[in-house]
């Protein structure tokens, strides 16, 4: 139930509009258990596959909607920056303010896109797990070919979003002056994790690590554990957050 717990936790912490879009891992697990105890599981398999396909559709639809949004917003951000830089600034202060807003927006936008990639990943992982459970419980051969199909789905082919993320990073590099950062600055920054996208991305990173911790059913199809050199630092973001997790 480890993944199930992690997934549930993640869903609770994630962006509100996204909560319904994740895999119904718990229900599917129940179904697998049910199927394995029923006698005619050959026919139940069709039902199971039907449900899985529905889940896949759900992912695809949501993913592509978000992707479309990202394409539009990406372009708009670029134009906004262009406008600010090209137009006559009313005052230095206003320019700075607008740039500060843009910086915040673009960093959050970057985070949101990464969260979508994370969404894709978590759902894939859940699918792989549920298929593995199915095969294990019913002695079926569903997993291998089915997962091949999943790999080709729009929601898993995140190349475009990743490309937008990288482009975003380039823009961010240009917007953020490179300076040497004092230790106090870093600490002050840590306390500002707050409510925003930052909190979500930190949480996602930690969840990923947890999910990939060694499990009792580690096999040749499992991913190795995630090694994050900055784990402690990142974990401190969550602990130091002044705003309690809802």
């Amino acid at each position, binding site marked *: 139930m480890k993944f199930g717990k992690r997934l549930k936790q993640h869903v609770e912490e994630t962006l509100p509009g996204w909560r319904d879009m994740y895999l119904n891992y718990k229900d599917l697990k129940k179904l697998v258990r049910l199927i394995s105890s029923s006698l005619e599981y*050959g026919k139940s398999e069709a039902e199971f596959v039907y449900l899985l396909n529905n889940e896949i559709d759900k992912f695809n639809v949501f993913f592509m909607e978000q992707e479309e949004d990202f394409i539009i917003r990406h372009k708009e951000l670029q134009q906004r920056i262009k406008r600010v830089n090209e137009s006559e600034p009313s005052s230095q202060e206003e320019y700075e303010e607008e740039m500060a807003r843009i910086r915040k927006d673009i960093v959050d936008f970057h985070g949101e896109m990464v969260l979508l990639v994370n969404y894709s990943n978590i759902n894939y992982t859940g699918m792989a797990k549920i298929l593995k459970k199915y095969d294990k419980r019913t002695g079926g051969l569903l997993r291998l070919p089915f997962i091949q199909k999943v790999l080709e789905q729009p929601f*898993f082919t995140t190349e475009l979003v990743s490309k937008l993320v990288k482009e975003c990073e380039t823009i961010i590099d240009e917007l953020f002056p490179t300076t040497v950062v004092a230790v106090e600055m870093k600490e002050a920054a840590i306390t500002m994790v707050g409510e925003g996208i930052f909190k979500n991305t930190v949480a996602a990173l930690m969840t990923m690590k947890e999910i990939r911790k060694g499990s009792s059913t580690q096999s040749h199809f499992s991913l190795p554990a995630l090694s994050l050199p900055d784990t402690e630092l990142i974990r401190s973001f969550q602990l130091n957050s002044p705003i309690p997790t809802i």
Partner: protein
Amino acid sequence: MSSANRTVGHIVSSSSGISSNLLHMSSISSDETCSKRASFVTQSSGILRSTAFREYMKENNTSSWCTDSLSDFLDYAENSPVQSSNLQIMSSEDVGKPNDWQDWADQLIADDDGASPNWNEILVDTPVADQHPKMEYYVRKPSKTTLSLPLNTPVPASPGEACTPMTPSSCGSGSQSKPRMRWTPELHEVFMEAVNKLGGSESATPKGVLKLMKVEGLTIYHVKSHLQKYRTAKYKPESSSQGPSEKKPTLMQDLPPLDFKTSSEITEALRLQVEVQKKLHEQLEIQKNLQRRIEEQGRYLQMIFEKQCKFQPSSSTLDKSETELTNEISSSPNQSETEPGPIKLGLTSSEKQQEADYSESQPSKLAKLNESSSLEL
């Protein structure tokens, strides 16, 4: 693994009203979807007759898919003699099935504002033998054994497809209104040019934009919804994708006691945020590549193993030691494109680490495959 992948045209449709979510059904179309699902379910008699399943459905009323109509159907199924064990949800031979599907297809076509889509054109361009242009919703191979595997793959597009990459999603199921399309930055550029020519986002009309864009297969519905998103993004920069319930906090509101937060501190926080996000993204990409590779190898090994079994159907195959199999695999001459085999691409250092971790578990893989295959045979 069977090579006869059944491919048929189907378009994924998205309607905000229809959610295939297990936990709740939207009221708008729940009845329709329920009846479709139920009509499907009645055909798979096994699961219905199993009382355990019924009990489960009754217990989990809140979380079952559509309780009312489904339980009606459950009753119905038990009383009526269910005929074949043939698991045909729908196949191209079987179009005489419940009117639901036909209505669906009609609706899909009718909904299109007379732009008369050429379905062949909007379909994905993967080559396939079966060129059935039928508007099927869901097609599976009729299963002969209890463990056969229904596979769904996208259908080919006609060769003369527009150059702009416009691939609709496939693997249809779920909803029945308009087909969903996958936008790209290039297509969006074309869109924006058209909009600008028409005087901007406020004055441009979907019909006008559609005409100007001249993209084959693009429907007015696609343009309409995209235009809507576009307008929202322009009007409220950086808050368009959040629902109305979640307002994007402005810079001021986001921070705790911010009187003493200087702008450089804010900038620092943002910088840190980006670092974390970059890290997350990097890990996600690595994970995804690993996952792909794992499955590729699994498939490859399976293929190799099946080949072995073909040539030596006797049980001696199963007795082959790990090392023998490994040798055979590595010296296998038929390394065609479809047999990926172990692939070493250029890896970053952390990717290398994870790859190494993964490889450590490999020696046992062959033994496992051996074991599991012996069970299957």
